[in-house]
């Protein structure tokens, strides 16, 4: 922003300088090609004209004209040279300023771009982190559900298998029962639960409180 302002001031100043130089050059050119009409000097005395011969007069006039033309040409050449130098300097300055401005803008653009890139990377990293976390959660949840499903299936299979084996045993064992061989076992059962019977006897004989 400061560079732009400085460039504008400089260009305006140069325009004024060029304008001034152009005015001076125009003035000199006008003065050269349309000289002012001076009133001829009145000879002090008519005898004066007689002192300068016409040839000399013509020669002096020619020399003066040549000198003036030379000086004017010289001034024009210098002016052209100065104008060319000034133009070149202005062009250089404009180029340098443009380069600086463009460089500054590019740097600013790069900085902004870097910031945006950094922000984007940060956001992207956060998104990736969230995605990874969510993915891990999903993986864990799916694994847990699969494990629960597996355990449930195993439990169902075990239940069906237990039922099948139990039914098989119940079906096959009830066709050949020998109570005689079970007598010791039955007595052992009664002996084992004798305390329960005694408690029941006590409960039956004692009236409820």
């Amino acid at each position: 922003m400061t560079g732009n302002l400085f460039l504008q001031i400089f260009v305006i100043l140069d325009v004024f300088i060029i304008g001034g130089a152009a005015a001076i050059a125009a003035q000199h050119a006008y003065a050269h090609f349309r000289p002012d009409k001076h009133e001829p000097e009145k000879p002090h005395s008519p005898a004066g004209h007689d002192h300068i011969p016409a040839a000399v007069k013509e020669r002096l006039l020619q020399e003066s004209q040549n000198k003036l033309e030379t000086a004017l040409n010289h001034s024009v050449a210098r002016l052209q040279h100065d104008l060319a130098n000034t133009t070149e300097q202005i062009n250089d300055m404009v180029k340098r300023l443009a380069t600086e401005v463009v460089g500054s803008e590019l740097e600013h653009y790069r900085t902004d771009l870097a910031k945006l890139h950094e922000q984007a990377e940060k956001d992207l990293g956060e998104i990736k982190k969230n995605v990874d976390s969510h993915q891990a959660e999903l993986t864990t949840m799916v694994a847990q559900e699969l494990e629960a499903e597996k355990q449930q299936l195993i439990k169902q299979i075990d239940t069906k298998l237990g039922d099948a084996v139990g039914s098989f045993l119940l079906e096959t064992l009830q066709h050949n029962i020998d109570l005689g061989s079970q007598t010791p076992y039955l007595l052992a059962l009664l002996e084992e639960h004798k305390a329960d019977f005694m408690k029941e006897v006590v409960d039956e004989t004692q009236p409820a409180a």
Partner: protein
Amino acid sequence: MKLNLQPSISSPQDLKSIILEIRQYAHWFSQYTVKMRASDSQPEGPAPVSQVAATLIKESSGKEQPSQKHLDDLIAGLEALETSAPRITITLAAPAPGSLKKVLVQWCREHVAPGVLVDFRFNSTLLGGMVVQYGSHVYDWSFRRQILNARGSFPEALRRV
């Protein structure tokens, strides 16, 4: 009157049967006594009575000759026992043979109550063991119950095979 029930009288039905038998005997004995008083001749032989009933009658009269009073007391005692005796129901996997019944009844009368009546039933689906019902409790010690309770361990056992 204290009665000592024999192991062969195990169930309420057995007891009822014995009571009926002794009642019939008492009726016969009454007629026999009247006949003995009315005539000098010996009446016909005694009413057929089972060995168990005969033993009970003999135990109730002691060393004396059985009298009508003894028989009436015996019947009254048995009827009282029928209504007041504790009862156990034992369900087995098959009809219990006499020897097994005798053993189980004897055990019950030694350890539970002297005059306890044991009713035997059978259910072939029990497979083995027994189900005992006493009072308000049912004790299921059958093989069927054990198999059903062990259903959960069959898969584990099969995995180890």
